[in-house]
């Protein structure tokens, strides 16, 4: 019980840091940064000392409780020190993305009323000095990387070293001041403002309290098992983002994570291998890149290695599949799995820096199931969690329950409701404290303590949260129902037999239908293996066996959809969607409105009675000639 009381006392990050530095483990390494080719370490005591010096230095320069400071830079210890220093003084940290141009930087500094800017290097300092005269509230600009700034003589510019020196002077004068400042903070204080890029209008500043960071992250770390042991973490997602606030900044203080900073953003892949982090967060795109890198390397590899890799991969994927279908794998498969790990995956994971990966996150844009299965085969579970700056962490897949379509189970401190029109409404113990200087926007998003996520989704029978699409991308069905064509299309395209698909509904229509493009290569191979003779694409697409094959693929996806959004009827199109005919963009995205109009007759037929339809389509040949194709295609019901 004593522990709980202590936890209640330590209700802010600076208090936690002080306790760690003064505790029994103060001389343990808290953060590492690779500099000049060597990993340099800072202990908890060093960390606290730097934060204290910087805090007092900024106070000497005029920082007051409740003021804001903007921090703009790459992930480095100095970023973390600046945030903790601000919070120790009772001020609020505001992260700014490094790729912002001067005009955007000005918006963040101005809107947040920041009085200090802590900037990384010359590049960022230049941006701030450019707009200095338009920011009357700004007192000082502090930078930490002096490169190129040696000759700068600006009355409001000083280095972090100079600020810390001022702080040490202050410490000698008033040794008790730092403790007083830290003790003055409490859990309800706003700790950080994270700007969220709204789809419309200017970015809004979501205020996060110390409680959000301390207690919210503590609960999260416990729920996901990264609170107990000493774990390594590689910090490279922007700290201006709430996720890094939770994982890197609060996570290290609340749990026992050691934060490692890569040398440069370009060296992450190298550094990750040197660290072998236990906990890490990659965006969806990065996972795809890693996967592509492995595929490319394998293609360049020797024939023996490629053979071995392919065998091992198929074993790994087979085991994944059994787990997904919840079939027991049996001793033989377990032995094969072990062998595959020893033969290929162990070395591969080492290459990728994933040897020790234990809790691996991704969020944002959906990671495709293939990628998730690829890493599952290697024994790495990518947890796609659902949350936002405003709502905090809403759901995380529990261990062993990673499923491609699900965002996992709702956290115990969160309540999720589904509104009339299918929008997810979220109430959480750890929510944002509103938008800075914008109560109207806050009021618009909050109803009875529930936050309107703007996401369309539902909870399935097993309590998994399925997030389907943004509300504004939904399409109507009769009876005021809505469904997400993109969601269904994306999932259908994961089938090797379906190359492209258009999913159609409409206000006057009761159900959903689809126009399917079969994948000529894979379906052709399927037909050859089963000795099904065919002549052309059109012929192949209308074979009963092929229609049965596609029906089965649709059924699989239907199972993940709510009843009304399931595809009831489809046709296999007689031709492929073609960028030459403007059906696709050059980046192979479907031109929805155009295709719907072009195949209007066909879509009519899908909602009609007949089992077959004659189609004529104008075709533009490569050489520019126009032709007309006539053929009959079958309309198929999905049982």
């Amino acid at each position, binding site marked *: 019980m004593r522990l709980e009381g202590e936890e209640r006392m330590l209700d802010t990050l600076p208090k936690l840091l002080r306790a760690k530095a003064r505790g029994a483990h103060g001389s343990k390494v808290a953060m590492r940064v690779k*500099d*000049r*080719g*060597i990993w340099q370490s800072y202990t908890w005591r060093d960390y606290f000392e730097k934060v204290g010096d910087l805090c007092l230095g900024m106070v000497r320069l005029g920082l007051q409780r409740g003021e804001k400071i903007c921090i703009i830079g790459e992930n480095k210890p100095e970023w973390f020190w600046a945030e903790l220093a601000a919070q120790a003084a009772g001020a609020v940290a505001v992260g700014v993305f490094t790729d912002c141009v001067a005009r955007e930087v000005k918006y963040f500094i101005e809107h947040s009323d920041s009085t200090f800017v802590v900037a990384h290097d010359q590049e960022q300092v230049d941006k701030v000095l450019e707009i200095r005269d338009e920011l009357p509230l700004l007192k000082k600009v502090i930078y930490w990387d002096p*490169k*190129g700034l*040696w*000759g700068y003589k600006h009355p409001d510019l000083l280095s972090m070293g100079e600020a810390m020196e001022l702080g040490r002077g202050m410490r000698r004068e008033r040794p008790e001041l730092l403790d007083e400042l830290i003790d003055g903070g409490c859990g309800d204080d706003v700790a950080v403002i994270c700007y969220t890029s709204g789809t419309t209008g200017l970015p809004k500043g979501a205020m996060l309290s110390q409680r959000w960071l301390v207690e919210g992250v503590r609960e999260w770390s416990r729920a996901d098992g990264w609170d107990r042991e000493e774990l390594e973490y590689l910090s490279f997602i922007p700290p201006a983002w709430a996720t890094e606030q939770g994982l890197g900044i609060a996570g290290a203080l609340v749990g026992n994570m050691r934060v490692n900073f890569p*040398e*440069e953003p*370009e*060296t992450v892949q*190298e550094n990750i291998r040197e660290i072998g982090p236990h906990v890490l967060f990659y965006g969806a795109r990065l996972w795809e890149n890693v996967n592509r890198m492995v595929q490319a390397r394998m293609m360049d590899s020797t024939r023996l290695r490629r053979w071995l890799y392919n065998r091992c991969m198929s074993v790994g994927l087979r085991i994944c599949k059994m787990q997904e279908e919840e079939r027991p794998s049996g001793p033989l498969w377990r032995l094969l799995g072990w062998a595959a790990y020893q033969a290929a995956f162990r070395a591969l994971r080492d290459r990728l820096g994933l040897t020790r990966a234990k809790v691996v996150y991704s969020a944002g844009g959906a990671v495709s199931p293939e990628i998730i299965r690829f890493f599952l085969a290697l024994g790495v579970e990518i947890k796609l969690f659902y949350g936002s700056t405003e709502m905090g962490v809403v759901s995380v897949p529990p261990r062993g329950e990673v499923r491609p379509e699900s965002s996992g189970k709702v956290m115990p401190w969160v309540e999720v409701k589904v509104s009339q029109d299918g929008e997810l409404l979220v109430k959480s113990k750890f929510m944002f404290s509103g938008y800075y200087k914008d109560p109207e926007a806050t009021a618009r998003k909050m109803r009875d303590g529930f936050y309107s996520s703007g996401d369309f989704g539902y909870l399935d029978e097993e309590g998994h949260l399925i997030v389907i699409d943004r509300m504004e991308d939904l399409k109507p069905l009769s009876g005021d129902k809505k469904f997400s064509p993109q969601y269904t299309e994306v999932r259908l395209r994961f089938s090797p037999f379906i190359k492209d698909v258009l999913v159609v509904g409409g206000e006057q229509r009761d159900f959903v239908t689809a126009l399917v493009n079969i994948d000529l290569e894979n379906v052709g191979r399927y037909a050859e293996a089963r000795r099904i003779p065919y002549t052309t694409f059109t012929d192949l697409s209308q074979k009963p066996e092929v229609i049965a094959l596609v029906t089965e693929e649709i059924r699989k996806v239907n199972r993940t959809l709510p009843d009304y959004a399931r595809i009831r009827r489809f046709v296999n199109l007689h031709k492929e969607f073609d960028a030459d005919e403007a059906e696709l963009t050059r980046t192979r995205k479907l031109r929805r409105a155009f295709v719907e109009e072009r195949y209007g007759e066909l879509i009519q037929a899908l909602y009609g009675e007949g089992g077959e339809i004659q189609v004529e389509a104008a075709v533009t040949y490569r050489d520019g000639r126009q032709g007309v194709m006539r053929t009959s295609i079958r309309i198929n019901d999905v049982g």
Partner: protein
Amino acid sequence: MAAENVLEIRKLSLGFGGLQVLVDVDLEVRAGEILAVIGPNGAGKTSLLNCINGFYRAQRGSIAFRGRPIQDLKPHQIAKLGISRTFQNIELYTGLNVLENLMAARHVHMRRGALLGALFFGPARREEIEHRELVEEIIDFLELEPVRKKIVGALPYGVRKRVELGRALAMDPALLLLDEPMAGMNVEEKEDMARFILDVSELRGTPMIIVEHDMEVIMDISDRAAVLDFGHKIAEGAPTEIVRDPRVIRAYLGEEESGAARG
């Protein structure tokens, strides 16, 4: 004034057979300055650099580095005195990585023998670590971290140019000769390189001679410029004056066009 000159070239003349490459060239480099040497193709710019660092032996004239005549020294002796240079067509060990290339450049400053060095033992080991630290500083300075262990031959051209500058810097030069450091680069790479050169000048105060074609670059970064034409120095002064000098315009554009340009 004379005491402040790092390099003094007096009446330097170089010829290959009947061809006069440099004719009575007088030039000095002052402490801490960036001196640009410009001129049309074949004006003798690179030959001038080659004379300074001992690749060519001039027939007449003198070159004094910090008051000491160097025109009769061999290239490696001149390098030891602290004159280092980069080349128009990058000269690096293409089979070694960036770090090894820079470490090799520290060779002039290594005192311990090869045997101790190979054994990585005692004073040699201390020395190696010391040099590595200096090299790492240069890597940090030129933002070469991502390619530290990459083989130089496989690097893009712009990066190799940067490595070459790094190699020259690793020798801890008292005078830096840069032969077309920005040739063949795109705008962004040029801007980066210009920034690095200015940073070197600002941080280390290393005097430099830059041979360059790009007038914009010269205007941006050099303190002074000298113009060569067929081996003669035809003008010298602040870059802004130089570009307006009729002799320079004539040398670059030819007689008629210059008239047209002015008319």
